[in-house]
């Protein structure tokens, strides 16, 4: 078994008060902070090494940066989302047809590669350079541009957005910060009274997660197989 890896992040970089650990347990940040030195949170990693997580986290922060237009991938805790997805059955291709022979085909047949998402990340991260996490933003952008057509980058971009805007039960969208950013109210049970009234104007409500809406603990698919 591999050594347990942790990603240490400053508390103030994370959005909201409610954080989901990689084990899927909701944790109130202030309580956890007490156990940490200097207001830092140690997040246990399920798939990435700490070095890999730092590089991926830095890349996500360039894909959806934190800037004047609002919080980004860092505050949403996207890295936890990606780590959990990769560690789960989807990351190991449990739902993809993986019998050979493996042949190259036309673009209309989609990804025909043998590598699963875990392997794509593991091979893709080193291409960003060993110092990627600490490189200046302009340099990071330059290196990402160089790989932006690769399967690895396409996955990384998709995952960053999933980690921003999926329900927090999957580990990202910390404190519902992604949904606050775009004004999405979450999986509310009913718009029966609103659907024909809010015409041409936004319906806004303080976002709620699926667990908040249903009052039940809900496990993501990644935790179930």
């Amino acid at each position: 078994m591999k050594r347990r890896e942790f990603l240490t992040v400053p508390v103030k970089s994370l959005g909201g008060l409610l954080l989901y650990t990689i084990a899927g347990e909701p944790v109130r940040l202030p309580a956890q902070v007490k156990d940490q030195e200097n207001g830092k949170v140690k997040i246990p990693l399920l798939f990435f090494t700490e070095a890999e997580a730092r590089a991926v986290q830095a890349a996500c922060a360039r894909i959806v940066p934190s800037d004047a237009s609002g919080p980004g991938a860092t505050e949403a805790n996207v890295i936890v989302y990606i780590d959990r997805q990769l560690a789960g059955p989807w990351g190991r291709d449990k739902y993809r047809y993986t019998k050979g022979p493996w042949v190259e085909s036309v673009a209309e047949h989609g990804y025909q590669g043998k590598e699963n998402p875990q392997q794509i990340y593991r091979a893709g991260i080193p291409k960003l350079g060993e110092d990627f996490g600490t490189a200046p933003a302009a340099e990071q952008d330059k290196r990402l541009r160089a790989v932006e057509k690769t399967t690895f980058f396409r996955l990384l971009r998709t995952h960053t957005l999933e980690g921003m805007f999926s329900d927090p039960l999957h580990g990202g969208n910390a404190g519902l910060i992604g949904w606050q950013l775009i004004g999405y109210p979450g999986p509310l049970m009913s718009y029966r009274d609103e659907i024909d009234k809010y015409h041409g104007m936004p319906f806004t409500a303080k976002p709620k997660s699926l667990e908040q809406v249903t009052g039940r603990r809900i496990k993501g698919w990644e935790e179930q197989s």
Partner: protein
Amino acid sequence: MKSLKPVDVVIAGGGWTGLLMAKEITSRTSLSVVVLERGPARKSSDYSTGMDELDYAVRLRMMQNLSEETLTHRHNGRASAVPVRQYGSFQPGTGTGGAGEHWGALSFRFGPDVFQLGSHIREKHGEAKLPPNVAAQDWGLTYDDLEPDYWRAEQMMGVCGKAGNLKGVKIEGGNPFEGPRSHEYPLPPHKTTYVTSLFRKACVDLGHHPYPAPTATASQTYRNPDGVTRSGCLYCGYCTRFGCMIGAKSQPTNTLMPLLVNKKNFTLRNGCQVRRVIHRDGRAEALTYMDASGEEIEQPARIVILGSWTLNNTRLLLMSKIGEPYDPSTGKGTLGRNLTHQVSANVRFFLDKPLNNFMGSGGLGFGIDDFDGDNAFDPAAGLLRGGTMRVTSTGEGPLAGFGRTPPGETESEWGAEWKKAALKWYDKSSSVAFEGGHFPYRQNCLDLDPTYTDKFGDPLIRLTLDWTDHERAQTDMAIKAGSAIARAMGGKVGETRGVGARYSVTYYQSTHVQGGTIVGASPERSVLNPWLQHWEMPNLWMTGGSTFPQSGSGNPTLTIIAMTYRAADALIDRYMKHPDKLL
């Protein structure tokens, strides 16, 4: 192999058609019915906490697990096929209810000419004007034959809509191009959203004839003739690719299972993958299947019904060696011919106001048939027939919706500039969607793949399928007409998508794959007679999209269900009086 005690009827597939057959047979006769469903048991209450876009709409949690079984595709008979390794152009379901659980519930009737498409286009245009290799043929039944069954299907599911043609009288506000209906819809249309009301108005201004899209999600509390009550839609938007959390969307688990669960002569076995029809001397004798524990079992029965999804129905006959496989080079054989999909196009447009796209229901919206069927005839463009167009508010989550920007707004697909543009345009776009009837062609067909296998080592089904100039003409027309409507709505037209140069499995088009075991008037050109009974094996019946000689313009589910009612009547009222005879 373990052989079980014989039953009267064994059915492969626990989706809409298998369970409807089971419901009709067990409620009208004392025959014992066993349904074999490969996927897990599902019930309506499973969905009360399933409103999670990632697991259901992105990871496709309710669909068939492709690692166990997929299909292969090639563009023509000279190429070798490759497996569809991850989901793309269509999404078969699994588990109790099948794809009828995660469907969007759009419930169109096919136009009367679809049932006589072969003779219709030959009379209208002459053989010489038809696209090369068109294999359109008549169903051996007419719209009028099927109308009472359409009406039963609409009542069973509680379809909402507005009639445009009641017994030949045209009605304002409905679809004037539809076939005559014997009754108004069981339920009134849904509420409208901003974008669907804009579409409706623009269509009226342009002289088109918008009608509320027909949908089997109840617009208000509804009790069907079987006594099953469902509540009205709450427009939560977790609809297509989801099971309905409150049971407003008609699904086999909430519309049929309540009638079946307590029936003594009904048994549903989940986790049971049917692999072969056992037959001898022109008679089906049993289905063999692998159960959840991996044991191979034989279930003998007097009547065998195959009610699995389109491709599986065809595959089961091919693997069981029932009927003559179709050979596209000679045109001989009937099994696997007339494979069709649906011709889809999309015109994205942007508006300057937020749309609240997260509210909605799988079939909420307006459509027009002003460009459907013969209405689209344009010989200069090489176009014989068109399709139906609509704007819907199906419930779009942030994963699907975030990142859409008008052309020229941003060069990158990531980074600060892109993020700013994506935020500015989030929830401000929708699309005009087109679904056209797909002509069957001699070259598009199904057979068994010689190389790739499923988890049991059985060959995968192989699709030989590509688009022709006619489908490109259909989607060129749709993009032109859809763009004009979008502009009339005050929209800025963004990305448009037609069928393109070649068939692609990489993006979702629709789960409306049809053909392979088609109905027809003669055994030379079809697998099933017009009652869905196998021409060569009178105690073998088949239901579902595999029976369609060609696709209609709209979604096929309502027609699939109407055809199942028709087959159930034929089987119960006529066949059972003279078993083992061809009707």
